[in-house]
């Protein structure tokens, strides 16, 4: 039985690189045809996200030349994640790879990424750069620090390894993409369906930086929006601290009340009149308020995730992985 590979590339300003990228994909396709009878790169989907340059024109010419190049055009700029989701929902592959438009992600790394995924029994494998990618070290460091923070706050250990060069099991990727609503961070939605997620270090080079054109498609504002999307898609478990604080405050108020009552019955005089009752009231009502706030936040969090598309379950079939790994390892 044939294993089908698909690639999905969101395009925003890739005019200069698209020919080279498609050439690289064609080389990969031909190599796979030569070396494997049952593994095929069957489709490469490019999603034009209201591109700033002539990317669409370049891609339509390439689509006329190669029937495996499929071009989708979004009606306006929606962002990298929605464009990726659109591409994934139009794919058929058993395994899907997302690549950037600017040759940062070399198609030659697709097979090693797939192999790593299979060897480690993963459904998703993210490729991480061995060295800093972008011209701005601050940007790279800040991005990593931000992801680590969100990962900690949401108790999602995979956030720090999120990257746009992904190898994903087709059924998982499509299910995650189908579950996405507006503002869902796609990689977070992948974690709703699987915990078999890994990462692999690779050489990733920003050719735009090398050529002295370090303008990326992301402004500061769009990076902030990107971060907001990541936060709102994650369940911030640290907010349960309200719940915990509420219980503690409530229990403290009860304990202090008991202690005061005991003192009263013993005839011990309370030195400052009114202080004890004020403190008890503050802790009691404060505790109850925090408790209720914690419950409210928890409920809202569940509702928000439901709106974002988090499902109850998904059934997956991993039975063909051994066969695919054997096919790759034999070559």
């Amino acid at each position, binding site marked *: 039985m044939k294993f089908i590979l698909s690639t999905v590339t969101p395009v925003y300003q890739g005019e200069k690189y698209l020919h080279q990228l498609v050439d690289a994909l064609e080389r990969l396709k031909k190599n796979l045809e030569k070396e494997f009878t049952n593994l095929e790169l069957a*489709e490469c989907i490019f999603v034009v996200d209201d591109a700033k340059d002539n990317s669409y024109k370049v891609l339509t010419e390439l689509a006329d030349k190669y*029937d*495996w190049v499929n071009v989708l055009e979004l009606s306006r700029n929606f962002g990298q994640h929605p464009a990726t989701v659109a591409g994934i*929902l139009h*794919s058929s592959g058993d395994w899907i790879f997302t690549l950037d438009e600017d040759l940062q992600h070399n198609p030659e790394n697709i097979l090693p990424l797939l192999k790593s995924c299979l060897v480690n029994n993963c459904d998703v494998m993210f490729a991480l750069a061995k060295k800093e990618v972008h011209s701005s070290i601050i940007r790279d460091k800040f991005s990593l620090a931000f992801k680590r923070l969100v990962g900690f706050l949401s108790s999602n250990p995979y956030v720090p390894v999120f990257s746009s060069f992904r190898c994903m099991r087709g*059924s998982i990727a*499509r*299910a995650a993409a189908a579950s996405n609503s507006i503002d869902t961070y796609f990689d977070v939605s992948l974690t709703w369906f699987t915990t078999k997620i890994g990462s692999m270090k690779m050489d990733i080079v920003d050719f735009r930086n090398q050529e002295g054109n370090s303008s990326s498609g992301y402004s500061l504002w769009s990076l902030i929006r990107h971060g907001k999307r990541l936060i709102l898609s994650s369940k911030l478990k640290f907010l349960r601290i309200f719940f915990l604080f509420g219980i503690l405050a409530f229990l403290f108020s009860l304990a202090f009340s008991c202690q005061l009552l005991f003192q009263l019955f013993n005839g011990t005089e309370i030195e400052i009149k009114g202080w004890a009752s004020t403190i008890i009231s503050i802790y009691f009502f404060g505790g109850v308020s925090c408790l209720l706030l914690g419950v409210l936040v928890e409920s809202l969090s569940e509702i928000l995730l439901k709106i974002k*598309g988090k499902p109850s379950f998904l059934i997956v079939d991993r039975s063909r992985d051994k066969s695919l790994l054997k096919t790759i390892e034999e070559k």
Partner: protein
Amino acid sequence: MIVYRLDKSVIVHIGLGLIGSAIYKELILSHKAKEFYTQTLNWGDTESCCKIIDQTFTVILNQSKSLEDIELKIVWSAGKVGFLSTQSDIDHEFNSFKSICDSIFRSIEKLNFRSSCFFLLSSAGGLFEGMKCVNKRTEPLPKRPYGHLKLQQEKYLELHEGLFHSIEIYRVSSVFSLNSKFGRRGLINSIINNTRLLKTTKIFGHPSTQRDYIWDKDVAKLIAGDICSKCKNGVFKYILASGIPITIFEIIISLERLLGKSISLNYQFSKSNSEDITFQKSSVRKAQYGTEIDFLLKRAIINNAI
């Protein structure tokens, strides 16, 4: 079976099931074809069907001033068997197809039409079951008797290509219809109706099974448009699909959002019906409207509520 007249064409249309009736409506309403002869074919009695075909050509001959001005168009959209049919059902259907076609071929050989074309409805699902990213170069590899029947029908027709100016074969993907009067409701209509009635829907397949759904109206518009155009030259095979694969899971998610309620499902993982069938977008002949799935789902919900 219905015979229509449209300008200088006579259209003999055999089979008015799901797609056939959609084509009929399209021909009558959009193209203003006029039906002038109707007969019911008894599929259990092939001999009487052949007699009816002979009579039909006699009627056409009597009603036409000169056959040399007439373009004859045969449309075959008939078929009772399905994915789960047995070999004996398939054999019976092929024998009926062969006998009726032989009657048609005999009549065409005797009469002198200006040109003649054959439009055959085949099945992309039956021919390419279990195959992904099917393109124009992909050879059919049927896995079950139904698929083999469709291939046999195509090959039988091609053996007689000398009789026709053109043979156009439409390999249609999974057809979605809002009209449920033809026995099978279809997956989407069943889910909507059962959800409305708070019932569980049984699905014979896997949630991640991918199919390519196309609307019966889109299919009908495309084929009717071809029927009403001038005969081409040669044998043409088209894959009629949207080029957009969709999983059952995606349909469920979309329906849950549109209906605003959870859908109760019972998956029966039968390997025989869990195979993916998808098509490369560049290789499909896209229907005129290429209706988006969300629109179809909304229409289906409204339709099932009425």
